[in-house]
């Protein structure tokens, strides 16, 4: 803002005990306006002035910007005990000023005085972590109760909903699982051929593909895909149901949201995840087979023979077992984040994001734990 313009917009003239602010020119929102603080400094100090008047005869246009400026002048006047004469302002301007001052600021609404220092934020962070832990524990407890109900045969499954979820999480995930699994198979085979070639051991590519895909990559990649696809969808669905009071409607009908929403989703994933992993294993191995036969000139027989030596049935079972565990983790993180969702569109987005992050983190962590236990037991 250049000072010439400021002079154009405002000028303070002292007449005896009163100070007249002469406003002129264009005070629209698009134009830059003088800061009140810089104008204030040009006011004469001390008790020499007792009132402030306005002269708006030269004013061309004005918008809210002028009003906020005037409010600052009025506040300044109140602070210093000066009389501020607004009667020379146009009627509509006076009316707006009065309207804005009519309802006093509500002071005990409990939002204003939030502290922004390090300690208050640390404290709030601690409390939110604690609340999250309580939420998780409660949710887990409710899920556990529902599982007990299921085991004791008192759970009433809505089969229609269940099969829709099965289709949504299982069959509809096949294209993306095919693509990713095939690529992972190709990549593992490439990686193997490049590194093993240095030792003249390309023949072991099939070992690497079979062992890597069956034990690790098949389950992990499927888990990541399903966490991104289905976990996010669960969180967004449930979050939206919370915003539209659909969850409340269930509760007040005496229907537990965990029974009604979480259980079918969790059971669907427990069933579909191992099947998807099985499928991903198959496609991944086909990917490795393609690389070995087309690029490395092995025969299909050689590849399968190598596989047969490298892996045993337990390797394959471990992959499926991981898939089942990942399914439970994805369902729990998706549903939990959905249930924790706040009451806005923003919150639904956050719930979906955090469902994916939680899901993938848990999958990787669980994978490490399972591998570790398997290593201890020599499986």
């Amino acid at each position, binding site marked *: 803002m250049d000072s010439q313009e400021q002079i154009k917009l405002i000028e303070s003239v002292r007449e005896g005990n009163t100070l007249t602010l002469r406003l002129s020119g264009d005070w629209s929102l698009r134009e830059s306006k003088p800061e009140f603080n810089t104008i204030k400094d040009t006011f004469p100090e001390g008790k020499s002035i007792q009132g402030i008047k306005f002269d708006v005869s030269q004013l061309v246009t004005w918008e809210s910007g002028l009003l906020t400026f005037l409010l600052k002048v009025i506040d300044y006047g109140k602070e210093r005990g000066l009389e501020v004469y607004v009667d020379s302002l146009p009627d509509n301007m006076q009316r707006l000023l009065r309207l804005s001052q009519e309802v006093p600021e509500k002071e005990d609404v409990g939002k204003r005085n939030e502290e922004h220092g390090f300690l208050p934020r640390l404290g709030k962070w601690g409390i939110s972590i604690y609340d999250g832990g309580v939420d998780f524990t409660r949710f887990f407890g409710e899920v556990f109760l529902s599982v007990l109900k299921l085991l004791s045969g008192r759970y009433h499954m809505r089969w229609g909903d269940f099969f829709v979820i099965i289709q949504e999480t299982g069959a509809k995930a096949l294209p993306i699982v095919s693509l990713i699994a095939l690529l992972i198979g190709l990549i593992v085979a490439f990686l193997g051929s490049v590194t093993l070639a240095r030792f003249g051991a390309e023949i072991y590519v099939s070992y690497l593909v079979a062992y890597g895909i069956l034990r690790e990559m098949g389950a992990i990649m499927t888990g990541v895909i399903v966490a991104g696809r289905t976990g996010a969808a669960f969180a967004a669905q449930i979050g939206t149901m919370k915003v539209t009071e*659909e969850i*409340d409607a269930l*509760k*007040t*009908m005496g229907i537990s949201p965990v029974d009604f929403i979480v259980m079918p989703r969790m059971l669907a994933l427990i069933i579909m995840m191992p099947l998807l992993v099985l499928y991903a294993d198959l496609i991944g191995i086909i990917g490795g087979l393609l690389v070995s036969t087309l690029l490395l000139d092995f025969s299909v027989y050689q590849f399968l023979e190598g596989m047969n030596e490298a892996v045993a049935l337990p390797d394959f079972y471990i992959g499926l077992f991981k898939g089942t565990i990942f399914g439970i983790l994805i369902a729990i993180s998706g549903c939990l984040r959905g249930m924790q969702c706040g009451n806005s569109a923003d919150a639904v987005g956050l719930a979906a994001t955090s469902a994916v992050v939680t899901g993938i983190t848990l999958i990787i962590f669980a994978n490490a734990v399972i591998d570790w236990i398997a290593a201890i037991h020599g499986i």
Partner: protein
Amino acid sequence: MMNAISQPKIEVRGMDLAYGSFVVMRDLKFSVKQGEIMIIMGGSGCGKSTLLKHLIGLIDPVRGDILYDGVSFVNADLDKKQNTLRTFGVLYQAGALWSSMTLEENVALPLEEYTKLSSSEIREIVSFKLSLVGLKGFEAFYPSEISGGMRKRAGLARAMALDPEILFFDEPSAGLDPISSRRLDDLILQLRDSLGSTVVVVTHELASIFAIGDNSIFLDGESRTMTAMGNPNELFKNPPNENIRYFLSRGEKAN
């Protein structure tokens, strides 16, 4: 219905409502008789809907108790609470229909969960309930395919599915045109008269308040407590305080 005269259907005793440390309402005391239409009124943001959420068990009060048929609801264990909840019908502000289900499935769900009716019997009841709210023929529609007013009426059909003893309405006329809003009022009166249900309505629509209210309480946002109780027409004639007179006369200044 046995204790229709002696015992209030709903009784609220010295209840405080709060979100965390922010107290919304203090010291609420009122009772609702069997078959009565009770209006909870007050300005926007004064805590009407919060009170409703307490009454239907979505939030626990920080102090005080709610009794249904003389039995404490707040201190009941989970199973008892669920059983009490099953005698309620709640119409939410925007209907809160389950969006993944058709209207028929929405209304049928409580029947499937809590009755041993066959599916053909359920279908008959569902289409009867939908016809009561003027939505016969819309069974196969999803909530997203119908208008806001229709969604509200469908929500009412769902709330009535199990012939509830108490019906709760959260701002039934919000977002409805005057005629639909009037029709909904008539519907509420008819339901009360024919089913004998007790009705609790949260609203600030003056026309509805005067048309359907047998009894009412006024929540005052400034003093954060209820400042009046009684028939709304009586309260209008003899207002016990300035705020309620101001509210019921749509902000007329005293003369």
